[in-house]
């Protein structure tokens, strides 16, 4: 309860602070909330169940494209588009998940990396002229409630934040449930769980599909609630983004939901800090160092602080 209240304050305070001229910072907060939803979803899989995924950007991207195509190509109500953003990645995860969840460790890592690269390549290849290729999809309509379009910075931020809080509460109840204990037991010792006669692959498949659905929801929100109203394969589905999601979970602390959210906001603000530093560092453009920092932070965190940098609440790994 305390963590939820803290999250509410953290998300809604910026509305008051940035409402005037600083809408850019508010939209960064909104972006952070979207990433935080993905971090929560990935934490269920990577943190609690111990299964790596290098294709979460693919699920996020499928969600984003499902929503954008529903709005632009089919002119559907955006709320239906948002439902599609949850259902499409869940379906894809269900189909590819069947063989994938059987794999372990480096085989699982490589398979999910392969899935991520396939989805990215397909989105870029512009199948049937539906995805717009490398250029992406423009002019995505915003979400709307009767009589009001959710198109201002504040209303977008409130919408995404409400979803984030709902997902946080959902994930907390899953983690604390009997099913959540099963997930963590698989993390500790898969063989022990198998020996109890439990269908481990079915548990992993459920987590994989649920995790993909939540990542897709975040992707759908990205389509409808980013101020650009524009998506492309590089911003929505690249392997680099998948690694970014892993960085968020790892630095925030695997098996700490609140930590993952903190990690997501930290990673969202990093490029801004680097941009602020540009021109002040000789020889290199600090913006180019973004991925170097992700890599270095991953290595250093896992070696020196395997529990994560922002361990707020949550259980010990």
């Amino acid at each position, binding site marked *: 309860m305390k963590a939820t209240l803290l999250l509410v304050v953290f998300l809604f305070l910026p509305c008051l602070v940035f409402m005037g001229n600083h809408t850019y910072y508010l939209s960064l907060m909104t972006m952070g909330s979207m990433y935080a939803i993905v971090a929560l979803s990935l934490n269920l899989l990577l943190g609690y169940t111990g299964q*790596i995924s290098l294709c979460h950007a693919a699920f996020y991207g499928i969600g984003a494209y499902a929503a954008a195509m529903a709005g632009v190509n089919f002119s559907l109500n955006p709320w239906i588009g948002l439902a599609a953003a949850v259902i499409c990645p869940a379906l894809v995860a269900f189909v590819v998940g069947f*063989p994938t969840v059987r794999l372990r460790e480096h085989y699982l890592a*490589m398979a999910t990396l*392969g899935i991520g690269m*396939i989805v990215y390549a397909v989105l870029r290849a512009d199948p049937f002229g539906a995805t717009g290729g490398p250029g992406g999809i423009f002019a995505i309509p915003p979400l709307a409630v009767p009589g009001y379009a959710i198109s201002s910075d504040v209303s977008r931020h409130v919408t995404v934040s409400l979803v984030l809080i709902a997902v946080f509460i959902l994930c907390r109840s899953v983690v604390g449930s009997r099913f959540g204990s099963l997930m963590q037991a698989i993390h500790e010792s898969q063989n022990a769980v198998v020996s109890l006669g439990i269908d481990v692959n079915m548990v992993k498949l459920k987590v994989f599909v649920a995790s993909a659905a939540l990542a897709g929801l975040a992707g759908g929100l990205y389509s409808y609630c980013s101020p650009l109203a524009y998506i492309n394969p590089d911003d929505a589905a690249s392997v680099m983004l998948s690694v970014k999601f892993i960085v968020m979970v790892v630095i925030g602390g695997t098996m700490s939901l609140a930590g993952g959210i903190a990690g997501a906001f930290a990673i969202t603000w990093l490029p801004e800090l680097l941009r602020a530093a540009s021109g002040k560092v000789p020889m290199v453009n600090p913006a180019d160092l973004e991925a170097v920092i992700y890599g270095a932070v991953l290595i250093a965190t896992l070696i020196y602080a*395997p529990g994560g940098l922002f361990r707020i609440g949550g259980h010990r790994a």
Partner: protein
Amino acid sequence: MSEILQYLISGIGIGTIYALIATGFCLTYNTSGIINFAQGEFVMLGGMLTVGLSQVPGLSMNAAVAISIALTALIGVAVERIAIRPARGAGLTTLIIITIGVSFVIKALTGAVTKDEFVLPALPGPNTHLFMGASIPAQTVWIICIGAAIVIGLWLFLKYTLIGTTLRAMAENRQAVSNLGVESETLPALSFALSAAIGAAAGVLITPITQMSWLKGTELGLKGFCGAVLGGMGSIPGAVIGGLLVGIAETTGSALFSGYKEVIAFSLVLAVLYTKPQGIMGGRL
């Protein structure tokens, strides 16, 4: 007929590259039990460093190649020292994420220097050989010959030298080797140096054909990994056969569905992982 032969030849050419990369995966897997996700970056470094050094006035091409391979090997040792060794004892998934971190550091540092695509001059030779109506570029012949020489040299090293035998013993049972009093601290570093050097050589060989940029490493590494899995993780003869098969399948596949080359290659990776994770030659050298 000559068309099929043509695809087969370019498949064997690119497949030799994948075979070398796959061999690198096996070496580090056998001695340290981890899959190095930064393996592809060594390939990229080999190509990019050679490109950079070849622009240094007064340095011959051969010297540029030698220095870049040596530098990559040193970077391989540094990776083992800085990122892998301190995390020993951590779970496999943790080690995988660490090597992903390494690959991002290497990739992005290269990208911070230059984001352009480069090409190296092909090795000297008559432009193309003709063989039963199919043309074989000289570079492909070079790739196959040099690739074969590297693999045979590695095999002789592993088979007939004391260090090589110890490396093979580590593949069998790391604990036993350390119980025998072998200083096993240096051997994982050595295997990283070797696999980085082999990767770098592959990068130098492929650059004249496909060009090289900071982004190429992941893709090359993934395909090399596919070869290693197809051959049975840890088996060097398997890695060679697996790498060749991936190359041939990729060229013939992309001839059938142009525009979806990457999709075909990665679908192949998945097909192998899903159906034969133990590989066609399961077991070790």
